[in-house]
């Protein structure tokens, strides 16, 4: 059933698709982190309308499927507005928005874990809200949630095949194209599966390392050596 020669022939076709998948994963992840931070910070704004808007957007995005969002951004937005983005840009934006809402929950838990005294000390030192976020709160809120962020990196990676629905030529669409050209489905889909497996394993290994690095020598306000 498995034809190594055919599999070897396929590999060059997968190379660009692999690059697209990795590119979409990294860019989508970075956007998710950015949106996640924005949602989390806006969700804590002193202005009620900002808080309300942020929470509604998060709730809305989380209650609809990524696939529907991708279709909407790719097919409907160009009809409603003069903005028409290529498949890659649309895809990473959809990934970033969708997982940004999940990431905002992750950041929220990290932010909530920073003791209130840190905010109060910042006020007592006359730091601006902005400076307090950047220099005091986020540097303490983010390190503990890095492992969870890493898990979302893997989730985003595994969700990239969704984007074939908006014509992004990533791994799965490439496999499908090859399979329909040759009517041989076994090799292309197996290769895709193995590639996903290999990269996921590498990601989780990296995350475990980060986890170790951050669990050691992490300082918090009350704990630590005396």
């Amino acid at each position, binding site marked *: 059933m498995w034809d190594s020669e055919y599999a070897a022939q396929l590999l060059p076709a997968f190379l660009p698709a692999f690059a697209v998948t990795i590119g979409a994963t990294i860019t989508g992840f970075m956007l998710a982190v950015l949106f996640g931070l924005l949602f989390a910070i806006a969700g804590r704004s*002193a202005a009620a309308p900002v808080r309300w808007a942020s929470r509604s957007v998060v709730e809305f995005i989380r209650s609809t499927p990524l696939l529907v969002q991708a279709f909407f951004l790719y097919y409907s937005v160009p009809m409603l507005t003069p903005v028409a983005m290529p498949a890659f840009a649309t895809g990473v934006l959809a990934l970033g928005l969708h997982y940004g809402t999940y990431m905002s929950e992750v950041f929220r838990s990290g932010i909530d874990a920073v*003791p209130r*005294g*840190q905010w*109060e*000390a910042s*006020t*007592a*030192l*006359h*730091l*601006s*809200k902005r*400076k307090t976020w950047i*220099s*005091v709160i986020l*540097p*303490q809120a983010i390190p503990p949630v890095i492992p969870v962020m890493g898990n979302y990196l893997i989730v985003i990676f595994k969700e990239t095949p969704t984007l074939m629905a908006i014509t992004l030529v990533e791994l799965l669409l490439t496999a499908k194209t090859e399979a329909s050209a040759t009517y041989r489905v076994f090799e292309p889909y197996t290769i895709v599966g193995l590639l996903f497996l290999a990269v996921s394993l590498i990601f989780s290994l990296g995350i475990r390392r980060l986890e170790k690095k951050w669990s050691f020598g992490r*300082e*918090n*306000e*009350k*704990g*630590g*050596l*005396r």
Partner: protein
Amino acid sequence: MITQIEKQWYDESAENEAGHALSPSLRPAGGKPIVRFRSVRKSFGELPVLKGIDLDIYPGEKIALIGPSGSGKTTLGRMLMTLEEPTAGTILIDGEPLWAMEKNGKPVRANEKHLQKMRGKVGMVFQHFHLFPHMSVLKNVTLAPRSVLKLSKEEAEELAVAMLRKVGLEDKLHVYPSQLSGGQKQRVAIARALVMQPKIMVFDEVTSALDPELVGEVLSVIKEIAKEGQMAMLLITHEMEFAREVADRVIFGAEGLIVEEGKPEQIFTNPRSERLQAFLQRFL
């Protein structure tokens, strides 16, 4: 929400001396109060914590605020530092309302910008230090001068080192808070607050969280700072000896009200109210 009393402060002049809370014998010669509390009330939900506080603090004056736990001492300090908003009444700093501002000629509730401006004159040291755990001692002390006062790195570090020398920690510049003792942490916190050169500093039970053998080092640092004189201090404390030694005026509060105030000798040797007598008994 703006209170009736705040409106009144706008209608009258901020310089109005009527209703002065402090008897002339206690009032330091010359100078206007740097801080005035006027009928300040604070409730948490249904629970009234402060039930009408009138208090004037003069430039450079050292005030010890003593009283049983739960009498609202800390809340008073926190309102001055803008960490709690009064339920009613007015707090004036240099004659300007802290929690209210003027907008189109009308008094409105203070926004963050107004608070940011006003709190520049106030500093605070906390019971639990609240050092930034992810920053070295030096970084803890230079953060605000660099970010708020816009000092260069060199200027800020020079100032920080001078302050850390004052609290006896110039050899700990590159150490992280977790490696310090409680007393050392609190001295860093004092240096960090001092470096902003506030006109009035709130010391909120700064030795209450310390092991007994570490209390002395922190109190002696505060005494040294008090001797320098220019900065007014609101010392919320349970250390009666310390209060007696440092304070120009001692205020005894209980159940959300100021019960008695006076010079340290009078308060500690000749307390008038039964409430204060009973309170001091426990410290003998």
